[in-house]
């Protein structure tokens, strides 16, 4: 598409200027004018002067903006890409400006937790689906938007920025949303698949973070490819069991957003989740690990949440519950691994008839 016709088409909005948010904005800017929501004025000035943010060059079709009302007025199609911990708050702010004609495709891989009064994530013993929500469910709860989708898959920002070949999944119950996503993101280096199992795809993106921590831990122990092969294949089984308990369908976990993303994350030493596992295996205490990182890895929270969900739904999740012990109950990685290797589970696959 040439830049001449760009101005004729309605612009697209992106909320969130983190790594993935800016990467998505750049991908979109090949096809459309993009409004990128940035929270503070200073960053906007910085972008306007330097056309970059945290080392990401910004396409010239991207306009930074810090007014959500204006963003919603200009753009029928919006990509919210903010960390899951801030997602609901962001939606509450955006919601008054949204109408049923808006289409929201989010790119956040995490879960939203609503706890009963006086409880914290540490004190609550069990969690069920009434408390644990995916981002699309948060969108539905907080706004009138129904045409919701998500972006998921092995999309490491760095590789995407370098125009390496990659693929993503747009998941939505609406074919309309999937085709919008394809139209806006597809390029000769970026393949886009569609999937109707929104909840499953979202869960796949969340649950793989657990396995990524475990992959880091194996790496930190100095183990090689056999171990990783074992972890990934058993990881898939565990993800599927947990995912189904939370309402996902098996199909969603076997595709690009499931196995594709899992393999990519388990092989990327730079990811935060992998780092957590690695450092723990190197003998750091969990508290030191958390303090050593500027942002909390999503995976740590995911472990905490999923352990409690597994207890509620009575799902066997040995990797998750062992990691929980390592992260929060002073068990060392070595002890955890010994335990897992003795775990009496020897059926390979039990989720396909």
């Amino acid at each position: 598409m040439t830049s001449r016709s760009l101005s004729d088409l309605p612009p697209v909005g992106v909320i969130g200027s983190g790594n993935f948010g800016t990467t998505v904005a750049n991908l979109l800017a090949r096809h459309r004018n993009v409004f990128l929501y940035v929270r503070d004025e200073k960053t906007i000035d910085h972008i306007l002067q330097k056309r970059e943010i945290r080392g990401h060059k910004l396409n010239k079709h991207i306009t930074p903006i810090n007014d959500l009302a204006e963003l919603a007025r200009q753009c029928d199609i919006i990509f919210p890409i903010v960390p899951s911990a801030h997602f609901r708050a962001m939606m509450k702010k955006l919601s008054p400006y949204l109408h049923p004609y808006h289409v929201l495709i989010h790119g956040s891989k995490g879960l939203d937790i609503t706890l009963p009064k006086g409880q914290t994530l540490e004190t609550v013993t069990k969690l069920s689906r009434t408390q644990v929500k995916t981002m699309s469910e948060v969108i539905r709860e907080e706004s009138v938007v129904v045409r919701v989708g998500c972006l998921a898959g092995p999309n490491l920002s760095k590789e995407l920025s370098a125009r390496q070949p990659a693929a993503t999944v747009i998941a939505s119950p609406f074919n309309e949303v999937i085709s919008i996503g394809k139209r806006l993101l597809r390029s000769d280096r970026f393949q886009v698949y569609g999937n109707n199992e929104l909840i499953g795809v979202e869960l796949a993106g969340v649950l793989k973070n657990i396995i990524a921590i475990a992959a880091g831990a194996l790496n930190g122990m100095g183990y090689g490819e056999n171990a990783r092969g074992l972890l990934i294949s058993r990881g898939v089984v565990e993800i599927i069991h947990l995912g189904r308990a939370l309402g996902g369908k098996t199909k969603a976990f076997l595709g690009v957003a499931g196995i594709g993303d899992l393999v990519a994350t388990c092989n990327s030493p730079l990811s935060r989740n992998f780092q957590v596992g690695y450092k723990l295996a190197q003998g750091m205490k969990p508290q030191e690990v958390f303090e050593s990182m500027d942002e909390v890895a999503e995976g740590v929270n995911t472990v905490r949440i999923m352990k409690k969900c597994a207890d509620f739904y009575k799902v066997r999740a040995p990797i998750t519950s062992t990691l929980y012990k390592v992260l929060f109950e002073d068990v060392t990685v070595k002890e955890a691994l010994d335990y897992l290797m003795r775990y009496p589970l020897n059926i390979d696959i039990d989720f396909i008839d």
Partner: protein
Amino acid sequence: MEVIEKKNKNKRYKPILDKIPDWPVYQLSKNRKEFIEDVAEHAFKRIKEMRPTRKQLVDELEATVYREQQRMKRNRWRVDPPDESKFWAKVKEDLIELTARPLDDNATERKEDEILKRIVQRYAGEIAGNFKPSSYRFAREIIQFWFARLLNATRVKKFGAIFRNQYTLRDKIQIVGKVKQLRNLAKKGTIVMVPTHSSNLDSILIGWVIHALGLPAFIYGAGLNLFNIKIIAYFMNSLGAYKVDRRKKNLPYLETLKMYSGLAIEKGAHSLFFPGGTRSRSGNIEKMLKLGLLSTATEAQRNIYLKTPEGQEPRKIFVVPVTLNYHFVLEAPELIDDYLSIKGQDRYLPEDDKYGSVQLIQFLFKFFTKGSNISVSIGRGLDIMGNYVDEEGNSLDAQGRIIDTRDYFLSNGQITIDKQREDEYTRMLSQRIVAEYHKIHRTFASHLVAFVAFEMWQKQHPKLDLFGLLRLPEEELSLDYPEFRKTCKRVRKQIYNLKKEGKANHATHLKGKIDLVIKHGLENVGNFHLKRPLLMDKKGNIITKDLNTLYFYHNRLVGYDLEKFI
């Protein structure tokens, strides 16, 4: 002392439209012929879109003929028109001729189209209702008059009581919930009422309710099997019913049926259908709804937005969930039998009804002589997306902000027709309706005792699955009253809690002393069945004479997560 319902306000509602000629349903039946033509034409177009190639169309036609002939061979009903075998034989003949002696392309295609048109027209004629003001009035009077007589004769046990007006049907049947809103909305837009369905009597009951609320007659989708029973057929016809034949599952029939419903709604006829499809066999509150007819409401709303000229207010469609709450269901033993045999082993379920006119009269007699009330809960109005609407008919979001329903059909600022999107919308609406059912369904004492007793027996036999449990001899089942009483109290507490959270509702009689509530429940639970599902023996223990039927009544409270309070 008997636990009685809070006295009904027994309010009479004025009709919202005075004269029958103003009623949309009358307008439809006055132009019956044109309307049928209209339906047939639209259905024809739709089927052609769905089967775009000629090969596909011919396959569809052949399949239709085959199925129809199978149906006539296997499962003929009294209501079936006598000329139908001739009709289908002719269609078959024409189809064979077409394949045997190919005409030139154009002529063949014309011939295929003609055959499809013929079929669709026939179906449209079969489906179409025939509302007649005179027989509507007559039927209405009959129901009013005789029901009142019967009630007074049986309740007031004095000579001459038959001529009293102390009791009316309103005392027997309670209407609760958002009545005022419903009446308001019926003036502002088109109502699509979606009640739960457990008994063949529902159709008549709801017809009476609609009249009692002062609303114009609705058009109904009523199962054709009901028309086998002459008395019911008479009432149905006069109340504006159209016929739904569940034996016919072929594409031309289903599309014609949907078109009929959709166009009628689009033209502003208040409509009613049972979205559960058939009577709830298990006794559960409907969990899965049939999306076919429901989708016609979505489609009609979209068409209204599409066709309403600028500057004119588009007519809005309001979906109103209604639950019919009974202490007893006439057909319960048969329904649960059906359900269990299907669940137990996958076998075909024949739709034959064992109830004729005689049973119906017997039932009515029992209904009036025994003190068992029915309550009808009217839910809050929804738009076709399942958003609540206010008194003015505005759709509201969770924060109470007004939503423009038209926006749901917009892409890029334009109203677009997207079948897949609308299917998804319909699915979302159906989930909302199910949630509303659970919210407005009124738990009766009889539901409570049935639920608690069955669950307690299940708990006593943890190793048995459902079928194992049901096979236990009834004589072996007995519950100590004190334990039963305690459990009832616990479960009732939770129902109170659910009501506070807005997730359930209960009848007034559920409150008060638990012993009285239990007594009321035991007296009423399925009290018309030959074998009582639950009663107290001479020693004061709780026993059953028919566990299957008890299971049926128990199921009404499944889906509220009450099991863990047993």
